[in-house]
């Protein structure tokens, strides 16, 4: 234990530790643990699953899917805990010109089944994602890659030719929905990747088991196995954690913090972060087609009250923009606050003085339904009646997804451009605000075509200003990353670290006891 940690605990203020972030044991510290990482053990993670779970990283939607994807796969690039882009499987990714990129893999990379990772696999992985007959989530971000003019220069090197420039290729490749998979990949029968853990068993809605990849291309993970166990509800998960039947509980309901603090053997990780759970207004249907209605609805939330009632203080004010941890984030835009009078006059001007809307929600995250209920209550003062309709969480991302005029979603921490590619381009896989705006497209193309980072940042600022003024997202809060761990788990972020994303990085953890 570091001296700093002892001092903080000696002061007995859990609150202080939480304010500076990272992980804190709920009870007085246990005796000195071993100095370094030890190998062994099975890490058991409790999740809320359903039979709709999938191992196909390119298609994942839920938290649990994301978790599994990060164990099984890697990308050409990746983000670190401060969300900076760095090399992953690639050792080099450079733009030879505006429309030509060179990607070179690191040497001696192997998939789980032993086959070496080659340029062929890279090209296959890219083609799979952008295939126009069956495009995956990441397709809009990579669509400008010409599938017919990919060149294999040697076993480890690929030259990509783009139809349009895209300076953000490293950002796009850094997300796990663009994984590198082998030619014989199949999500059901052969879910093979390069990740720290390899597939052993998977029963959707029940359990999955992964074993250590001894041939991992960097420091080998410590746990022998990782198991993901599905639960019915959060109370059952917490009980299992307290009872020692699981070791990790990601994304617990904020209300359980009090129990976890008092329970023996639990470490709480409460990381100030920028996860976001937006309200999504479809800008292509009535009544949200009128920008004044969207602006009015964005002026409704009492954001500090939202943070306290929905997230119990474990969040910061959001400004209706995502990507808040990105270097290009527009943090100089004024913080939007509640303005009921302005909201009312906007609605009147738009011809909807007594607006009645229905919001579709589901318990896909522990706070989504509460967020809808709090928003509905706050909307009353503006004369807006919001009816909350709960649907089956298993069906939330089903066929009705993207078709609901007023809905919600739950996002983690991501860089700015990959989310833009997923949400703001017409036809994109997560275009939940029905966004099809010429100016937006112009700015995106311009930013992608700009090599100079400073000039690019200006364009991104302009884009965010546009979204701030007339976008379809209402983002009242930027949410902490919350996880509960058993005391036996070591390697967790120290207090005072300034990272924003530690989720699911289980290859860095080990069992202390």
């Amino acid at each position: 234990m570091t001296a700093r940690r002892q001092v903080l605990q000696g002061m007995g203020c859990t609150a202080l530790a939480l304010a500076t972030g990272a992980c804190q044991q709920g009870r007085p510290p246990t005796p000195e643990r071993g100095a370094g990482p030890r190998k062994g053990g099975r890490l058991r993670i409790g999740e809320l699953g359903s039979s709709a779970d999938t191992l196909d990283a390119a298609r994942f939607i839920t938290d649990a899917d994301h978790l599994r994807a990060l164990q099984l796969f890697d990308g050409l690039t990746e983000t670190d805990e401060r969300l900076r882009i760095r090399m992953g499987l690639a050792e080099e990714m450079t733009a030879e010109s505006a429309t030509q990129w060179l990607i070179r893999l690191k040497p001696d990379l192997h998939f789980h089944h032993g086959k070496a990772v080659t340029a062929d696999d890279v090209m296959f992985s890219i083609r799979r994602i952008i295939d126009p007959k069956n495009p995956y989530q990441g397709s809009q971000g990579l669509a400008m890659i010409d599938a017919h003019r990919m060149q294999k220069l040697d076993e480890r090197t690929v030259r990509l030719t783009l139809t349009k420039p895209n300076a953000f290729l490293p950002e796009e490749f850094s997300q796990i929905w663009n994984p590198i998979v082998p030619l014989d990949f199949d999500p059901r029968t052969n879910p093979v990747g390069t990740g720290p853990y390899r597939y052993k068993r998977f029963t959707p809605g029940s359990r999955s088991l992964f074993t250590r990849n001894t041939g991992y291309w960097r420091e080998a993970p410590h746990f022998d196995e990782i198991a993901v166990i599905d639960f019915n509800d959060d109370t059952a998960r917490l009980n299992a954690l307290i009872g020692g039947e699981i070791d990790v509980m990601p994304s617990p309901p904020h209300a359980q913090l009090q129990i976890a603090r008092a329970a023996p053997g639990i470490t709480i990780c409460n990381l100030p972060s920028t996860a976001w759970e937006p309200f999504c207004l479809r800008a292509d249907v009535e009544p949200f087609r009128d920008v004044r209605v969207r602006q009015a609805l964005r002026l409704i939330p009492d954001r500090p009250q939202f943070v306290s009632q929905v997230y119990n203080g474990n969040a910061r004010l959001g400004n209706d923009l995502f990507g808040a941890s990105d270097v290009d984030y527009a943090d100089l835009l004024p913080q939007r606050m509640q303005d009921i009078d302005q909201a009312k006059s906007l609605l009147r001007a738009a011809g909807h003085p007594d607006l009645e809307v229905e919001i579709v929600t589901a318990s896909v995250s522990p706070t989504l339904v509460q967020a809808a209920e709090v928003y509905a209550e706050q909307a009353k003062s503006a004369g807006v009646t919001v009816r909350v309709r709960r649907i089956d969480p298993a069906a939330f991302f089903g066929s009705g997804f993207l078709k609901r005029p007023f809905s919600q979603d739950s996002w983690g921490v991501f860089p700015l451009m990959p989310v833009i590619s997923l949400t703001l381009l017409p036809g994109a896989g997560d275009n939940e605000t029905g966004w099809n705006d010429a100016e937006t497209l112009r700015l995106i193309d311009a930013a992608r075509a700009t090599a100079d980072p400073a000039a690019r940042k200006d364009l991104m600022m302009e884009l965010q200003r546009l979204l701030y003024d007339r976008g379809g997202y209402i983002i009242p809060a930027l949410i902490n990353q919350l996880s509960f761990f058993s005391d036996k788990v070591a390697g967790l972020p120290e207090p005072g670290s300034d990272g924003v994303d530690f989720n699911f990085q289980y290859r860095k953890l080990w069992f202390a006891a």
Partner: protein
Amino acid sequence: MLPPMLRLVVWRVAVGAMTLLALSTLIFGATQALPGDAAVQILGTHATAEQIVALRTTLGLDRPVIVQYAAWLTGILHGDFGNSLTGGQSVATLIAPHLFASAMLLLFSFTTAVPLALLLGIWSAVKRDQLFDHVCSGALLVFASLPEFVIGIGLVVVFATTLLRLFPPVSLLSPEDPIGEQLRYLVLPVATLVVASTPYVARMMRASMIEVLDSDYIAMARLNGIDERTIVFNYAIRNAIPASIQVIALTLIYLAGGIVVVEAVFNYPGIGVAFIDAVRYRDLPTVQCLSLMIGAVYVLTNLLADIAVILCTPRLRTQW
């Protein structure tokens, strides 16, 4: 002509079958044949036209009601309950694991509640108007008034959270865990079901037992000088068997009825919880299938109990 007893049995079976048929009509009528557009109700007001048309075709809502009903009925007789509207898989595969979980719950509750109810009923009848009877009757009266979720939460507060911490307050049931590990999770739901169902049937048993004890037959035995103990254990209990059968049947019925709420309290993954989710998310085929199953349990249990009583009662009091 068939002997009268056999005729009665056949008639009861026929009545049972007709009740089941009427039940299916009721279920179908309540879920699919109501006025208004079922598809719009299920999908919500903002559904697109294509979605509504697609759902109407899936459910067969574009055909006349009689045809729909006939199709549904034929499907059921072939074991095809249709596909779940939320997940798409067949209703049968969806509910199979739930059925197993509920069956376990019912089994443990039944084997606990029946002896308990019979014992309490008989003993409080034998010890009529004494302290045991007063205390017992009072307690049974109180518990009989309480809704199941009140009993459930009460037990959770006492045994799992606030006062004592003996048992887990929710259920974790997985086919891969050994049974012994899972028994812990059954204790509170089983206790709730037992406490909720026993009072009614215990009181019934008591009343029937009192009737038997007050009967001429027993009075004659007493006059003949037979001791009280033999009277109770040999004569009275034997005559209370038909009543016991009714009690046993009723216990099963009350348990099956209480299962929906009790599973909800403990989030126990049985058919009760499956039913509630199906209702909540308007998954018509699943709702229809589960209600039919629960109703069938009722009808079957009643039928078997009636037949058992017929077979046990030497003097048949027929109503026709």
